[in-house]
């Protein structure tokens, strides 16, 4: 094994290790926070249940155990990839989450796709006409997009397309037509963030020496921007796209409420308001895992695009 590949293995191992530490911390903090936040028994039983009935249910669910015992049970379950059973749904947490994950993933990926399709041309177009009417127009739209909350965009889109024009459904899930409004709603903020960042990093690149050289070699402005500028300008954008995926998951919580989309966002809200401890733990842990994985992917992509960034760094 060469020195270089050994270094890469070491680096990869340390990244995975730190990811595991992050996951462990997330699991512990969530475990403690949900227990501070309240007692699930009062949500499970009607208020006229007697104290004996509450005690009996607590014993059946293992909620009468000392905190340390519950924590040990929880961790030993995690090692076996067992997230426990949801208190409300009477099903394993992993199954409840698995039922909902595809809907959120579909929504987030579609939104990210829409965001990139709109933001990349918009960012390039604005950068190439810096200070001109087109740039100002695009920047105004970006400002609007970034400052408009998703629930408002969602309701306006529903009013126009579902209530007035009646071309798209207002809620539900199942067909492509159900996906359009929530995905667009979710994409709006990301379009603004990505386009703005691409524009400013392109502007940095456009004034650099190699761009002048490319123009001097006879490349047209578009060719120069696309083949030389874009690659260099994409580094910060990739970071942001990675982070945006997190924002999309967070934004999905609001969007899913407005469009009654059966995803993880709505599930998380329900789990928190029901004090469904195992389910809250499961969803938070999943979100943490998604963030960790995205960060790893961003790291790797970086080094693939920019040879100056090495994995061992």
């Amino acid at each position, binding site marked *: 094994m060469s020195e270089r590949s050994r270094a890469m293995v070491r680096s990869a191992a340390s990244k995975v290790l730190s990811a595991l530490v992050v996951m462990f911390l997330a699991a512990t903090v969530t475990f403690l926070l949900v227990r501070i936040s309240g007692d699930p*028994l009062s949500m499970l039983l009607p208020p006229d249940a007697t104290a004996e009935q509450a005690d009996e249910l607590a014993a059946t669910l293992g909620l009468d155990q000392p905190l340390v015992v519950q924590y040990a049970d929880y961790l030993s379950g995690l090692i076996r990839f067992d997230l426990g059973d949801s208190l409300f749904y*009477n099903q394993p947490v992993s199954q409840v989450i698995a039922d909902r994950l595809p809907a959120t993933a579909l929504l987030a990926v579609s939104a990210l796709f829409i965001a990139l399709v709109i933001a990349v041309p918009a960012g390039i177009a604005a950068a190439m006409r810096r200070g001109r009417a087109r740039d100002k127009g695009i920047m105004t739209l970006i400002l609007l997009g970034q400052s408009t909350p998703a629930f408002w965009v969602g309701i306006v889109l*529903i009013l126009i397309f579902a209530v007035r024009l009646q071309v798209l459904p207002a809620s539900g*899930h199942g067909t492509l037509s159900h996906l359009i409004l929530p995905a667009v709603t979710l994409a709006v903020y990301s379009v603004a963030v990505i386009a703005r960042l691409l524009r400013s990093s392109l502007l940095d690149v456009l004034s650099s020496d190699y761009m002048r050289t490319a123009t001097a070699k006879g490349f047209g402005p578009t060719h120069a921007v696309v083949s030389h500028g874009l690659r260099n300008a994409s580094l910060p954008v990739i970071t942001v796209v990675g982070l945006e995926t997190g924002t999309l998951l967070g934004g999905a919580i609001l969007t899913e409420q407005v469009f009654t989309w059966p995803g993880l966002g709505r599930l998380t809200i329900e789990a928190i308001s029901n004090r469904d401890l195992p389910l809250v733990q499961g969803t938070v842990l999943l979100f943490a895992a998604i963030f960790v994985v995205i960060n790893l992917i961003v790291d790797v992509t970086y080094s693939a695009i920019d040879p100056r960034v090495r994995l061992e760094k």
Partner: protein
Amino acid sequence: MGASASPPDRRITRRSALRLAGVAIPAVALSGLMSGCGTDQASTSRRSLRVSQPGEPRTLDPQKQGDMPSMNVLINIFDTLTGRDPDNQLVPRLALDWAPVDELTWRFRLRKGVRFHNGEPFDAETVKFSIERLLDPETASPIVELRYVTSVTVIDEYTVDINTDQPDPIIPEKLSLFGGVMVPPAHLQEVGDAAFAEHPVGCGPFRFVRYQRAVELELEANPDHWNGPPAIESLTFKPIPNPASALAALQSDEVDLITGLVPDAALQLRGYQGIETSSFPGIRTSYLSLDTEDPVLSDRRVRQALNHAVDVPRLIDAVLDGKAREVPTMIPRESFGFDETIEPYSRDLDRARELLAEAGYPDGFRTTLTASNADAFVAEAISGLLARVGVEARVDLLDPAVYSERLTSENRRALGPIYLAASTGWTLDGASLVQSNVRRDRRQSRWTSDEADALIDREELSVDPDERLQAFAELQRLLKEEAPFVFLYQIDNILVHTPRVHWQPNVTGALVMEHAEVHDE
């Protein structure tokens, strides 16, 4: 960049604009096509009804849930021993008649020839299995009403005795929803609990078709139901938590009937064409619990003054859009034991000030009113009404989960001196609303009264209706006189729907859709 860069720039823009258009046109056409499919689905010839409610079932196992959103769906799949008709009368369903054999035994005679959706016959063994499964700690059932039931004895194929360890006069009433649900023993033992919850089999008016969690649950008419097939052929429940989204779904023909709305939300839906709002009397009763050991509230005159100060008719009119009824004490109208001769407080502000002055608070006092943030408007309005007699009640709003945790905690002052509470006494018996907050040993009681405790014992431990009526009458008089609560209102059941839908809930508000009809326009 100089002027020379501009011409190629424009060319590019035009080209990219064309490319964009190339993408956009098919997209628009596609969306047109897709919405076409959507409308086809809605306009099928089958008589179908799509109902939204804010929540969805926790589970489809009827014995592992104890909340109305779950029951609202499951009552259509599963049948119960007794039932409530649209006029709130207790009526036979799977049980034909019933009577107490002695103080600790209720005998039920069962309907013959009933079959579950899978063909399994219903008989006395079914009742024994169902109720004993509910009581089994392994089931961890959140259904609490059958707390005194110990076992079920099969007398013959169609007769059972339900045995209790203390007299329970309202066993038949308790079997009209949650606890009275019958499950198929052989099927359950064959497929197991988990598979049963995935695909429930009951003997109710509708059969389970499919369930996509958080999206919709579809049922179809059971043509072999003992009461004849229901009027609608297809029944779909959709959980839509947000009232604005529910309205949009109604306007874009995705649901026909919205349920579970508070008056405030229903008000937003008023005035839209093709949408009707109907409200029906409800049993859910709101009240303020007063801590009778609080230094100020321990004085009966202060508590009476608060009852005069909270002008309930005005509250109903101003905050609840008139969609509630004033309730004189803690026993709602339509409940067994409600005494018509007891009038609500006269809401006399001068009398309130007089009582406060007599108690030593001529300028009023300061206190705290705690409520769940779901009831924010009502709590604020009550605080405003109290201010008119000088009582300054700071409103403390809590997250609903925190609220219910404190409501049921050991500390009976966890919600402060005054809190706003509501309870749905779906058994329609006077005992329902007072069972957990009057007798001193109950979890939410903040009152110590020998007289009240004795009256609760009389109505709870006797199976003689006349004896109970008398106890309830005395209890209502005592409640009004001692005022350990501020008595508020019974909220209406509000429906928002298209004109095609014809359905009336009883006061429990349960979504029993057996008699619902959908007319063609």
